[in-house]
């Protein structure tokens, strides 16, 4: 015991009991400790028994969930082409940022939202919406990341930052700039809750991009492909270790429109800075050649998941840029209604060729004085001059002879008051008033005085620009009405209606409309040399209440209409122009003129190109040489 100090306090030691056997003194306690060791082992073994034997399945499944991830492979949407096959709406490849929900932590949502310039409340609401979905179902967060957002994602992806962020390859819509054909094409957007619950979109999943308006919406099923899926085994950093299975995406089908991009561009340029709409149809087939509504919006903003704030700004804009005026603006047609009335009068025999009216600048009907638009009056007018110069007094008399129900009958025959059936969403039908209509809607009988207003396209009568183009096209086409469409039907369609107007009556009305442009009519300034354009101006007082809230005095101007077609016989193209607050119909006529001219110019150009080259040599030398020789 040399290591021990000398006995401590040797004097007091005797009081203490004698030591027991050194090696055995704690034998009992050691035995007790052995039982304690056994108890510890039993405790531990039970812990492992619980997990490994009793709950093996539960934890195996969890282990499986840990490692198997499904990533969507997004199917690109079909491209949208014009009638010549030129691409109007394309896709470009980019990345979509998705929020994987397998390891989502609510606390991280806020910093993620801040880093990505998303409203945190919006993101939280979005995450809540997904809580019914399986956890492998990721939330699309954002497309087309800006450089700083991309830097954020690159910096914070991964296990130490936000492991829920994931970039996947994706195709995005590229729409024409400046809102060209924006209303026609529409836009895509994330499917909403309401849409998810409706049967129309039943086969879609949350987060899907679907067509929200225009062609994108109407032909969504054709355009959208079927997303594929990649099932992978991942490690804790979400690195793919093994691809377990791939279901390839089925791309959407391309869609060829009847729109002529050249015409569309001309119409858009003509409408630049104005509010209104242009609809160009081929009345022989129903092909929509151009469809413009202004003011427009930029569909590209929607392609990358528009924010709620930006969307509500668009919705609340008093000029309603999202509103497709071509199919949805229901306005009084004004004088553009007169040719229809004239045709009705001829068809019913209410007037004959000898019928004339002496216009003094106004007339009194049913105790009220109705003015003509020309203060001095037109003098003696017959049908042709009345159409050409838009004499109101003449048509007051015609309208009075016909009566409201006959007017309504012919207006409906011409396609007003009902949807044309165009393959675009949201079309409006307008109103064709009649005595029945008034009783039905207002529980009042029709007053004959109201007929006088309707006769010059005012009063309760409202139409859409598309309806006017359709009506004029049908009449000029010999009373054969073809359903307007932006995509050619798979099989040629039968006419919607053969109105059975007598050709000589049509001829008389068309003659009047030819005189509008080519004679001494209201749109004489818009004559196109060499092309027989016919048409009718219209100036209508504001019938829609939508615009009354606007304070700008210019906004109180009359709406200008012009519907033109060419040539007079068997027209190839009909163009309806609405210029809201354009003051007078002759202001709208040049717009139609530009479009019609563009159509015929292009036709001439194409015919020249189609001519066979003069010699084989010039064919070898190519186009310019051939062109020179042709000159």
């Amino acid at each position: 015991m040399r290591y021990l100090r000398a006995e401590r306090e040797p004097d007091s030691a005797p009081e203490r009991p004698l030591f027991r056997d050194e090696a055995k003194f704690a034998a009992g306690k050691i035995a007790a400790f052995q039982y304690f060791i056994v108890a510890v082992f039993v405790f531990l073994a039970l812990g492992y028994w619980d997990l490994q034997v009793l709950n093996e399945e539960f934890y195996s499944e969890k282990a499986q969930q840990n490692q198997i991830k499904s990533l969507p492979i997004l199917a690109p949407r079909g491209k949208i082409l014009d009638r010549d096959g030129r691409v109007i709406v394309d896709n470009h490849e980019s990345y979509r940022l998705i929020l994987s929900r397998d390891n989502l932590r609510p606390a991280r949502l806020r910093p993620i939202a801040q880093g990505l310039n998303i409203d945190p409340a919006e993101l939280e609401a979005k995450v809540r919406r997904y809580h019914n979905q399986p956890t492998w179902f990721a939330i699309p967060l954002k497309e087309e990341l800006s450089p700083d957002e991309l830097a954020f994602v690159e910096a914070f992806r991964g296990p130490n930052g936000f492991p829920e962020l994931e970039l996947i390859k994706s195709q995005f819509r590229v729409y024409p700039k400046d809102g060209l054909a924006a209303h026609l094409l529409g836009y895509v957007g994330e499917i909403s809750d309401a849409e998810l619950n409706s049967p129309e979109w039943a086969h879609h999943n949350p987060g899907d991009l679907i067509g929200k308006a225009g062609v994108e919406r109407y032909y969504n099923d054709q355009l959208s492909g079927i997303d594929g899926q990649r099932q992978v085994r991942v490690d804790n950093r979400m690195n793919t270790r093994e691809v377990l299975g791939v279901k390839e995406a089925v791309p959407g089908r391309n869609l060829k429109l009847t729109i002529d991009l050249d015409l569309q561009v001309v119409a858009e340029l003509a409408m630049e800075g104005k509010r209104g709409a242009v609809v160009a149809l081929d009345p022989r087939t129903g092909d929509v050649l151009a469809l413009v509504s202004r003011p427009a919006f930029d569909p590209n903003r929607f392609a990358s998941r528009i924010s709620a704030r930006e969307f509500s700004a668009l919705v609340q804009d008093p000029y309603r840029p999202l509103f497709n005026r071509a199919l949805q603006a229901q306005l009084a047609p004004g004088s553009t209604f007169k040719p229809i009335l004239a045709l009705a009068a001829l068809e019913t025999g209410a007037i004959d060729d000898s019928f004339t009216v002496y216009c003094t600048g106004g007339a009194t009907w049913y105790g009220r004085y109705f003015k003509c638009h020309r203060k001095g009056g037109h003098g003696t007018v017959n049908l042709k001059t009345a159409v050409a110069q838009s004499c109101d007094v003449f048509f007051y008399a015609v309208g009075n002879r016909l009566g409201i129900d006959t007017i309504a009958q012919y207006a409906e025959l011409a396609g007003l008051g009902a949807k044309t059936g165009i393959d675009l969403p949201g079309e409006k039908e307008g109103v064709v008033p009649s005595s029945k209509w008034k009783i039905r809607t207002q529980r009042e009988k029709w007053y004959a005085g109201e007929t006088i207003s309707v006769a010059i396209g005012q009063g309760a009568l409202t139409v859409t620009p598309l309806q006017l183009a359709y009506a004029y096209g049908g009449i000029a086409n010999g009373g054969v009405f073809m359903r307007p469409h932006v995509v050619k039907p798979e099989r040629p369609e039968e006419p919607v209606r053969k109105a059975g107007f007598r050709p000589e009556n049509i001829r008389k009305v068309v003659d009047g409309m030819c005189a509008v442009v080519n004679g001494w009519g209201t749109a004489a300034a818009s004559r196109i040399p060499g092309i027989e354009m016919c048409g009718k101006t219209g100036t209508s007082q504001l019938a829609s209440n939508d615009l009354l809230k606007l304070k700008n005095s210019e906004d109180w101007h009359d709406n200008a209409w012009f519907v033109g077609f060419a040539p007079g016989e068997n027209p190839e193209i009909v163009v309806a122009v609405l210029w809201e607050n354009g003051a007078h119909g002759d202001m709208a006529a040049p717009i139609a003129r530009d479009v019609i001219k563009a159509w015929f110019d292009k036709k001439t150009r194409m015919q020249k190109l189609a001519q066979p080259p003069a010699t084989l040599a010039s064919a070898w030398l190519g186009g310019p040489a051939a062109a020179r020789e042709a000159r």
Partner: protein
Amino acid sequence: MAVYRSVRNLDWALILIAVAIAGLGILQIYSATIDTAWRGAWWKQGLYVCAGFVLMWVMTRIDYHTLLGQVPVLYAAGLALLVLTPLAGSLVWGSRRWIPLGFGFKFQPSEFVKLVIVLLVARYLAELRADRLEGRDLLKLGLLVGIPCGLVAAQPDLGTSLTYLPVLLAGVFFGGIRWQHALLIVAAAALLMPAGWFLLKDYQKARLETFLDPMKDPTGKGYQVIQSKIAVGAGGIWGRGVTRGSQTQLRFLPVAHTDFIISAFAEEHGFVGILVVFGLYFLLLMQIVQNAQAAPDRAGMFICMGICSLLLFHLLVNAGMAVGRMPVTGIPLPLMSYGGSSMLSVFMMLGLVNNVRLRRFAA
């Protein structure tokens, strides 16, 4: 006398069990690191085992009485190292526990202080030569152990500092603590617990909270426990096979070759494998207890039982944490977890046990 200290008298059963456990550990390290940056860890661990043998041999050669005589020096040196660690140590995961030695080796003083604590407690209690512990002695001993304990806890390494306590507790238990004192200590601990809460670092509090409710934050603080439980549970009865455990191989299981090696082992070898490992540990501890019973004197008994309780504590906390029955601490599993300092200190402890065994007829 010398004849009894021959190689033949070493506790070969103890050594073989230790080697078997270390072998399973190396196998599991190999499997868990097969495609990670730690790929070479298994053979390094083999080297540590070899080095451990050398140190074990050294520890059997020096009479433990000589070592007990040097306790003041060892204690002072240990304290100096612990004070030095925060100054010279390398910062790893927010705490300074290691002193770099060059060539990529690091030295963890707190591991070797364990041996000093064992010797200190043994010497102090043996010197009292009494069957009953007086309150004064209890306080002194508590203070002696408490200082290094506090230094390690300040690194911060709460887990390792806690491993000193079972040595102290086993010591006072075998040294004859009065039941009144025991009650007093329990009562004081219960009272000090809320106060201690404020001394804990945030991450330590979080670990305790997580222990109480891991699902509170499943991908954050609770991640380790949840992934460990999934790994253990997914192993089932027979295990997934070496290098086949998805939790381990795809690295969902954190630190699968060090602190959570038992979870990785449980995933790949199943409940059967766990029973084998626990069986080995049980035999190891019982072998140490047997050496305590055969010790020639009180000091030898205290050394053996101190080591036994320390290893038991390690096993309980580490293996319990893997199944969510203990809070998460950085305490390694002796002989299995990858790490040189831990491996060497365990082999030195086994050397001490053999030291006591070789001198069992000396008295």
